[in-house]
């Protein structure tokens, strides 16, 4: 298919439809409203079903029902909406049911604002759900990358039988970029569901044993064993789902670490610093969990400072420090509450951080 110019949110919705989504459930929240709007008219045409849920609580639980019964499900929301979904996400993970969730995040805390923000880093990587649950999280930095990730994450969710979150800040949802959309895969017909998902509850006529999708395990030993099983899966995820890109790490004095929109600003800041005779590089985590710790081993011996660059008060910086393991000083360049720094501001603050680190 040829490249088309599309608004991020619409491209994300279309990518999900092409991935073979049977159901989408959503509740309006800016800056992702174009997704439920697009789904409401386009998904039924593709043979899928749309419900405008009465709340995000309902949306996540509708998603559970549809997916537990074997449908491929996509939901989207923005920061406060994701907060409401947390119980559901933990429950779905515990039931080992797949789901792809797109969070087009905005500035917080609380109701916050509607401008782009990255202060959901901890919410998506640590979650607000109870219990030992991990959720793979991917953070794209372009509309194309987000569309590709949405398409691919359905396979990841199916393979791991776990929710997967894509964190795209409001900038990606609202801007327009050329995008090449993946090919349509079609929806699995209802009579084929148990071939692909033998565990799905479809009616006992459709599979040899009765199926039950459940989370309650009152016997502590059984519950512990379940946690151990889930963590075997998560150990595999930590090996197989790690993703990042990097540039200029070998001789960089400054290494930026940034994801999503912020990483694009860092690329510009790196050019500005080069004009000033300063070598800077970038680690762009794509998987936020599992975190790309291995990327930091590529940092060369010229490095003086690693800078976590975020649209929050500094949330990813905890993971950056863990990955750095004391090898270099770590500092923070950040704006928050929907404020986005210019590349000049980033370059200036990075130069200052370099001076301080070499003082």
């Amino acid at each position, binding site marked *: 298919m040829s490249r088309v110019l599309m608004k991020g949110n619409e491209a994300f919705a279309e990518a999900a439809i092409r991935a073979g989504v*049977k*159901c989408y*459930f959503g509740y309006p929240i800016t800056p992702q409203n174009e997704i439920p709007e697009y789904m409401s008219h386009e998904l039924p045409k593709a043979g899928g*079903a749309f*419900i405008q*849920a*009465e*709340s995000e*609580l*309902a*949306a996540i*639980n*509708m*998603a*559970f*029902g*549809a*997916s*537990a*019964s*074997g*449908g491929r*499900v996509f939901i989207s929301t923005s920061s406060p909406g994701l907060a409401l979904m947390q*119980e*559901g996400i933990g*429950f779905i993970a515990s*039931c080992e049911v797949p789901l792809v969730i797109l969070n087009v995040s905005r500035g917080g805390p609380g109701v916050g604002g509607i401008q782009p923000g990255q202060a959901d880093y901890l919410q998506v990587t640590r979650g607000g759900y109870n219990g030992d649950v991990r959720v793979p999280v991917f953070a794209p930095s372009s509309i194309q990358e987000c569309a590709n990730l949405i398409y691919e994450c359905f396979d990841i969710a199916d393979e791991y039988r776990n929710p997967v979150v894509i964190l795209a800040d409001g900038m990606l949802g609202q801007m327009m970029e050329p995008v090449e959309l993946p090919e349509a895969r079609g929806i699995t017909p*209802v009579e084929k*569901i148990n071939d692909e998902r033998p565990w799905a*509850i*479809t*009616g*006992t*006529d459709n599979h040899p044993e*009765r*199926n*039950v*999708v*459940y*989370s*309650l395990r009152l016997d502590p030993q059984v519950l512990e064993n379940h946690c151990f099983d889930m963590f075997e899966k998560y150990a595999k995820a930590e090996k197989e789902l790690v993703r990042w890109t990097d540039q200029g790490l070998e001789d960089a004095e400054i290494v930026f670490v940034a994801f999503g929109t912020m990483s694009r600003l860092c690329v510009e800041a790196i050019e500005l610093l080069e004009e000033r005779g300063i070598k800077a590089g970038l680690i762009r985590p794509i998987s936020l969990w599992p975190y790309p710790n291995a990327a930091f081993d590529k940092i060369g011996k010229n490095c003086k400072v690693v800078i976590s660059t975020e649209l929050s008060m500094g949330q990813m910086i905890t993971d950056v420090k863990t990955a750095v393991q004391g090898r270099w000083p770590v500092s923070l360049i950040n704006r928050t509450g929907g404020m986005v720094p210019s590349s000049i501001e980033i370059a200036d603050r990075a130069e200052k951080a370099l001076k301080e680190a070499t003082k």
Partner: protein
Amino acid sequence: MKTIFEPTKGMIPVDTSYCPGCGHGIAHRIIMECLEERGSLGNTIGVVPIGCAINAHHFMNVDMCESTHGRAPAIAAGIRRVHPDQVVFTYQGDGDLASIGTAEIIHAAHRGEKFTTFFINNAIYGMTGGQMAPTTLIGQKTTTSVNGRTVEQAGLPLRMCEILSQIDCAVFVERVMLNNPANVRKAKAAVKKALDIQDARLGFTFVEFLSSCPTNWGLAPKDALNYVGQNMADYYPVRNFKTPEGF
């Protein structure tokens, strides 16, 4: 030899986890008998609640899933979108449905969801040990209303059939009670009708069972059944609220 009684294949032949005299077992059985009689056991998907009946999937011989507390109607709505042809139901207690899950049940009715909700109203939170529910009667003693529920402190009990029957797309709404064999037979007829109307895809279908929780009411099983028939039926009229034409 002629068989005069057989347990329904809809119930898995194990002991249930319910207390003696509890209404859950009776409600389970009549729902499962109806599903068996109409040949639906193999194409039914049920959603169990948070509450004593979370265990229902150990007893009901159909495909089932658990739910988060109160959200079973949203879950069933999702299931219905994937399975247009199956029988879909939720089974919910009064803490689950009439307290934490009010939004989901109202909006399932509002959208005219094509599934059936079986609502077990025992006027108390059973599983957590007998706290007050929105359906607890005035004067009824619970662990969070030790001197009896008062209007001043907690308002008047919520009547779900009366609320739901105001919603246009809820097409079948009936309250039944599980206090004696004759009323159990009537309850079964309501279950059957609800499932037939679900088949016709006319809208949302709802059956409320006035049910007993002898354990948390502090009553012997027989006294608990009398409490259902007298005290509960006094406040919660047992009747049909709504039936579509032709049923």
